[in-house]
Every structure is written in C-alpha cells, then in structure tokens.
C-alpha cells in the first residue's frame, strides 16, 4: 500500500493528521486550479476550502479507480461550477468587437508569468472564464461543457471564442504583438 493510499484510508476514519497530510500534498495544486476558476484570491480560497471539506467528507466515495489527484481536481472544478451557478449566472457578458488575433514570438511568451495569465483569466466574465478553463485547460468538449453549465453547445463555442479574443487582446496590449494572423476556429 502506498503512502497516499494509507493516508486516504486514514482519512476515511476522520483522522485529522491524515487530512492535514492530504492537504499538504495537494493544496498547492488545487489552489492553482481554484485560482483559475475564480475572480480573485479570496474567491479561490472559498472554493479551495469548500472543495477540501467535500473531499474529506466524501472521501469514501473514491474507489481507487484512476488518479486521486484527478478525482480531487474534479471536485474542485465542480465546486467552482456550483459557485458560478449560484452567484455568477447573471453576470453581464462583455461585448467584444475584435475578431483578429496575434501570434507572439517565443521571447514574448516566455516573459509572461503564470501569475500574469491567472490575473487575465480572473478578469474574464465568469461564464467565459468557466468555458475557457474547461475547454482549453481541462480538455472537456463543448458537448460536455454544455451539459455541465446547462448551456447549449453553440453557446459554449461562442463563449470560448469571445474568451479567447479578450485574452488575446490582453496579451497583446501587455506584451506586444509581432505580426497579426487570422484565427482559425477549432
């Protein structure tokens, strides 16, 4: 039995030390996930806290099929989605008129830090942020995203497209563009 499995079994019994150990192992990664889905660090803390409470109270539902980290990540994402459904559903969506994209040189890309990208994502309207995270980073399909967010597949595509444009503009404005290209929708 691995150390992780042993820790999980102890968490089944509500062992505080094991819970702390699990938190120590995964809190950094999960906080990174939560930051992407939230509008600021305070929001991310709320999601992380609620997510870990769910992890500890529902840990018996983990059946050791697949990665524990993946299971935990799904809980965090679901927690973020639930929070979005409760609070951010009616958040006004920003209209964009830019339909062009930019390609950046490698030096520009490498100079952008993760914290700066996180800040850009956090500035997106909530629904765009959700769709962009789910599609571009988590790898869900538009069909799956539509089901998760209770929107149509077309709306998901449209939201993704708009999210990309906003992010592209922010990157260009902040880090400069070398040449303009036409965006191909995927």
């Amino acid at each position, binding site marked *: 039995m691995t150390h992780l499995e042993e820790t999980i079994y102890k968490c089944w019994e509500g062992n*505080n*030390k094991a*819970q*702390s*150990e699990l*938190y*120590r192992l995964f*809190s*950094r*990664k*999960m*906080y*990174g996930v939560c*930051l*992407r889905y939230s509008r600021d*660090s305070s929001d991310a*803390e709320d999601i*992380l*806290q609620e997510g*870990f*409470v769910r992890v*500890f*109270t529902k840990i018996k539902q983990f059946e050791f099929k697949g990665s524990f980290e993946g299971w935990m990540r799904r809980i965090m994402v679901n927690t973020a989605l639930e929070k979005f459904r409760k609070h951010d559903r009616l958040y006004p969506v920003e209209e964009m008129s830019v339909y062009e*994209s930019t*390609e*950046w040189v490698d030096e520009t*890309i490498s100079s*952008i*830090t*993760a914290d700066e*990208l*996180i800040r850009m*994502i956090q500035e997106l309207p909530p629904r765009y942020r959700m769709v*962009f995270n789910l*599609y*571009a*980073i988590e790898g869900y399909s538009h069909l799956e995203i539509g089901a998760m967010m209770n929107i149509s597949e077309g709306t998901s595509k449209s939201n993704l497209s708009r999210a*990309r444009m906003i*992010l*592209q503009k922010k*990157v260009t404005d902040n880090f400069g563009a070398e040449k303009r290209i036409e*965006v*191909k929708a*995927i």
Partner: protein
Amino acid sequence: MTVERHPIDQLFKDKLGNFEKNPPVGLMGQIDQQIAFRGRVRRMNQVKAVVGIAAAMVLIVMAGWFTLDQNQFSENKIPAQNHQEQSPIQSSQLKKAVISSNPDKQLLASQQQPGTDRTSNSAGKSNSSATKRHSKTSSSKEKELLTSVSSKKETENSQPQANTTKEEKKTNSGAGTNQKKANPIYFADSFNPNPVTKNPAKGSWIIKAEVSPMFAPQFSGRSSGTKSMSTVSGGMMATYQLNKKVSISTGIRYSEMKQGTHTDYTLSAKSGITYLEPVEKSANISRDVSLYLPSVSSIVYSNGMLPAATTVFASDISQDFKYLEIPVQATYKLVDSKVSVGLTGGFSTNILIGNYASITENGLKLSKGNTDNMRDVIYSGSAGIEFGYGLAKNLMLTVEPRLKQYMHSVSSNEMINFKPLQMGIFTGLTFSFE
C-alpha cells in the same frame, strides 16, 4: 488526426496546466472547523428529527388519550342519570335473568330489554347495589353478580324459568357483544360520581415541565485552577403512572456544563496548525483544549505574542458544553397526600450538541474554538427527592433536589478521566391526564 490548438489555448495550457501556488496559511484550520461545524449541524438535524418525531408521537398519544377519556366521560354521564330513573325496570329484568337457565346471557339481555315493572322498589335497590359492587366487563364478576342477586332474590317473588319467552331468548342470543355500550348499569358502574383525586391513578399520563440552575462542586475531578460556572437545565417529561406508588418518566432535557481555567499557555504547531497548549500537562479536561489560532493570529501577534514555541502567556480559558439529555427516570412515592414526597432515580443519554471554548486575556477574547476529544454521547445517572404540592385538580408544583453523575469521562482522551457531578434544584409543574 491531431487538432491544431489555438495559440491562446496553447499558451494558457502550457503555463497554467500544472500551475501551483501556496494557499494562505491557516486554511486547513478553517477546513477542520468547517468539517466539525457541519458534523454538529448534521447531528443536530438528526436530533431535531428524532425529537420532532418523539414529540409528535407524544402529542398524538396524549390527544388520543384525552379524546378517548372525554368520550368515555360523556358516555358515562348519561347512563348514570338513567340508572336511577330506570332502576325499577332493570330490577325486574334482572329478576328474569336470575331465574333463567342461562344466567349470563339472560342477565345481559334482560338489562337491555324494556319491560313491565313486576318487582318491588326494594328489589330494584338491591339489584342496583349489587351491580355497583362489581366491575363492568369481567365475566367472573358477572357470575358473582348473578350469584349475589340470585341468593337475595330466590326468596322473593321469582318467576318460573318457563316465563322467559322465546322472543327474549332470541334477543338475548344476539345481544351479548353490544352489551357494554347499551347497558346503562354497566356504565353507571364505571362512572365515578366523585372523580376528583389528589394523585393520578394507575395508568394515567402526566406531563411535566421543569427547570433548574445547575452547580458542579469543586471536588468533582477538576484541578484547582479550574472553576465551574453555574448553568441552567430544563426540559419536558412525560410520566406514566404504573400504580399509585410507582411512575416512570421520559422526555427531553437541555443541560450544560461550563468551566473556566486560569493558566499558562504556549503556542505550538501540530500538523501545520498553530495551537494554544497549556504548559502544564496534567490530566484534566481543561488541558485538552486546542484552539485554532490562525484566524485570530493577528490579534495574538498584535498583542506582542510571537508564535515561537517558547512564548508563554497567562490567560483565562472558558469551556462550554451543551447537551441534549434523554432521561429515563422512575419515581417511588413515599408520602401521598396534599404534599407528596417521592424518591427519584434514573439514567440519561446525553448527546453533545455544543462545544465552545474561548481564550481571554485581560478582558480581550483572543480566540474561539472548541475542546478536542469530547465524546458525542455519554451516559449519566441521577437521584433525587421530589416534593409535590397540589395546586389544583390536575396541577401540581414540584421541587426536586437532584444529583447527576456522569458515568463516563466526558473526554475520549485516555489521559483524561473527568466524570462531572452536577447538582440542581428542579422546579416543575405537572399536569395529569386522568
């Protein structure tokens, strides 16, 4: 076929796919508190559900009992009045029954049948007095009644068995099952012309509301630095009177334990969480307090207390435990008059519904939290002397000095063996349903 990724997607995926960042310090403490809080809420909801169901059942039973009692009373009242008016008729019918070959059936049927008065008033009185001495339903007593009546009547103007007509026999054969309702004598018998009794009779129900201040003596296992604080206990009880002397009660009661300790504490870290720990490690409940500091660390630090292991500071810690108590209690009545005296004793299941602790220094509350390792359920025994004073027909005022001894240590920590003793003087009001 590989799908070309959008450069924006690629950029964010590459940079943020495995992005990690340290969460704020102390979040784990908040998670722990949240889990504990939700556990308490869940337990409270379970307790509320059980209490709600129990209360509903008690109400239904009491309502049913009361309604039944009222119905019986109203049914009894009318036949009792008829009893005197119709006694001559009944006496003549009784006489018929006495001389019949089937005494039981004849008696029952003849009481129901209207007929002519062939007997004297004295015979009626005799029958009436005979029936009053006997119970309404018991078949053995019916036989006694027949024997008693027949012995008296055989010498009087009895009629031959042949006088009982075929019609009467037919009526008799079908009347047996409905006798109780139709028979005025039986109901007159069951009706008590003077129902006012000082004490509830066997089989009656009593409800009681009681409240008391609670004290814990210093010799009950605490260290010298810990002082108990007075609390309040109270609740509702339902009592069933088994007989004139013995009754058994159950219900629901709220109780509380509170204590304060003045001692030295130090800051220490366990599993990444900063705790306040008493410097002295003696086995006592007050030494088992661990309060989460992170949420209030700024207050502690701003008071010049650094989170170093060597930092020691004196403060007052207050612990408060709230219990929901489900007692089962027996009472044995020693004196049963206007002022009654009874011995009470029983056991209780105590469910922890509140666990609060706080640290105060110079009047400033530094931290709030709870006491570790408290048992969720513990059992206790109680004994007392109940004094009762009848205020009205069904209403009684009671005063009961009572001792309550916890049978287990309230903490699951093996180092701690703290079984508190509490004293209270319960004042209550009882209402009996007769």
